[in-house]
């Protein structure tokens, strides 16, 4: 990867973080931490990997992206607006009365959203069905899961299915930020060794630093990497990444930044754009 590309992706991730902070602050909404943790994942997907056309969002051969952790929708709306799927200033309506940008991923009237999510464990089965169809039609499907979401049994039904049917055009990225709704993953329901679980279900499973755009780019641009196997990228991330006082803090699954916190967050992120 050239230095320029790396800088572009890093800057895009920071722009997304800034949007996430501003959107959640305006909306007085939750889930800022799990948005910040996947900023590089979204930046690499939309900056380098996904074969999509912002001005032709329903192009039949497009790659599909499903954000199964639908509560982190601010980041997805932000990256879609950044790429030109809809106007950037519409992000200001997020969560508001009558807005099409609802607080969990909503497909209705929102260009670039393949399917609505919000109830955890629903996205991967749908992505798996898309991948089954895509095998004949020639597109790939990428799906981001949260770590807490891996508690849902439906994901493991889909993992069995995709492994059995050798859906090599399907890639899961687990945003493994180690904190779920009421505590750390280790406290609530242990997932480790997570990538080994996916591997044992017949997946090509790799671990990466989920904030390293070069590492993400390497694994995601290589898929399908393993013939006849879907890919699972366990992305080790930091909840609240990029804002010093939000990092590793359960509080920022819920709290909305305001006042001095908002100014500090913007200042920290702004320095790096």
């Amino acid at each position: 990867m050239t230095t320029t590309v790396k800088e572009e992706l890093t800057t895009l991730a920071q722009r997304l973080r800034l949007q996430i902070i501003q959107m959640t602050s305006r909306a007085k909404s939750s889930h800022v931490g799990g948005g910040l943790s996947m900023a590089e994942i979204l930046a690499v997907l939309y900056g380098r990997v996904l074969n999509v056309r912002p001005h032709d969002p329903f192009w039949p051969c497009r790659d599909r992206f499903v954000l199964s952790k639908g509560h982190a929708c601010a980041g997805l709306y932000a990256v879609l607006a950044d790429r030109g799927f809809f106007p950037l200033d519409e992000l200001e309506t997020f969560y508001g009365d009558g807005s099409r940008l609802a607080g969990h991923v909503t497909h209705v009237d929102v260009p670039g959203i393949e399917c609505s999510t919000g109830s955890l464990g629903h996205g991967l089965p749908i992505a798996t069905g898309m991948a089954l169809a895509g095998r004949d039609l020639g597109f790939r499907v990428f799906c981001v899961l949260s770590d807490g979401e891996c508690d849902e049994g439906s994901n493991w039904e889909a993992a069995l299915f995709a492994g059995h049917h050798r859906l090599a055009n399907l890639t899961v990225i687990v945003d493994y930020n180690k904190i779920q709704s009421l505590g750390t993953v280790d406290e609530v329901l242990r997932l480790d060794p997570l990538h080994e679980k996916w591997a044992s279900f017949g997946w090509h499973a790799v671990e990466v630093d989920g904030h390293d755009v070069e590492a993400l780019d390497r694994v995601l641009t290589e898929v399908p990497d393993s013939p006849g196997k879907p890919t699972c990228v366990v992305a080790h991330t930091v909840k609240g990444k990029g804002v010093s006082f939000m990092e590793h803090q359960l509080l920022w699954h819920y709290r909305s930044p305001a006042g001095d916190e908002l100014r500090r967050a913007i200042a920290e992120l702004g320095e790096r754009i």
Partner: protein
Amino acid sequence: MLMTGDLGFGVIESFARAYPKRFINAGVAEQNMTGVATGLALSGKIVFTYSIANFPTLRCLEQIRNGPCYHRANVKVVAVGGGLIYGALGMSHHATEDLAVMRALPNITIMAPGDPAETIAATEALAKMDGPAYLRLGRAGDPRVHEHPVALSIGKALMLRAGNDLTLISTGGMLATTSKVADQLQREGIGSRLLSMPTVKPLDVDAVLAAASDTGLVITIEEHSIVGGLGSAVAEVMAEHPTEGARLKRIGLPSAFVSRAGSRDYLAAKYGLSVEAIVEDVKRIRRA
């Protein structure tokens, strides 16, 4: 495409052999089956999901709500064993609240055909219709009521018999019983209009209101809990469109679990759904 949750021994093989690329056994995993069906439908396929009793509906209810219903995806959920068909298999296999639960979901079309002829017509109609649907079936070998193939429109009742004293409205597998009820009433000098209601949602409001206005007494008969099914749907319509002199009686299963084993006919009779019990019920209501 046809997806099954690992059920359908003896009935599904011919399709699987004829169309191997259009058949998927999803395994015993109804939540994923429904999600995969949604993903396939969002990519342009027409997908039927198949299992028995409550497994393709209640087990994966939220997947149906958030998936096919919200996305108006072309997924048709098929359940075999509506009502007490699997009576002896126990409570887990009694599909007795499915119509109520599914009826509450937006965007979905619900059909419970009354006999094999209606089943063929309903299946063809649903395959041609764009959007999500629930097809509630009885079982192979259900008695035939229509002598000839039927022409059926989604959302329209079928009138099998004209009569002026009362209207019997049946859905699903109660049609054969209801037809015999009408025969018996006729022998006793009571003329009944017999409506088969293969579409529970959207309900044929015009047919219900015409029945109320023409015959006064309307009686719904269903192999389903008295809560939330055909009877409730008809009650909603009649309550909001009052017709002078019109009355409604809902005949169905009590809102209770059946904890004893028994054949479908045994259990149906035990809960008042035999021909004799319904005839007596109707005569008592007419006297009231």
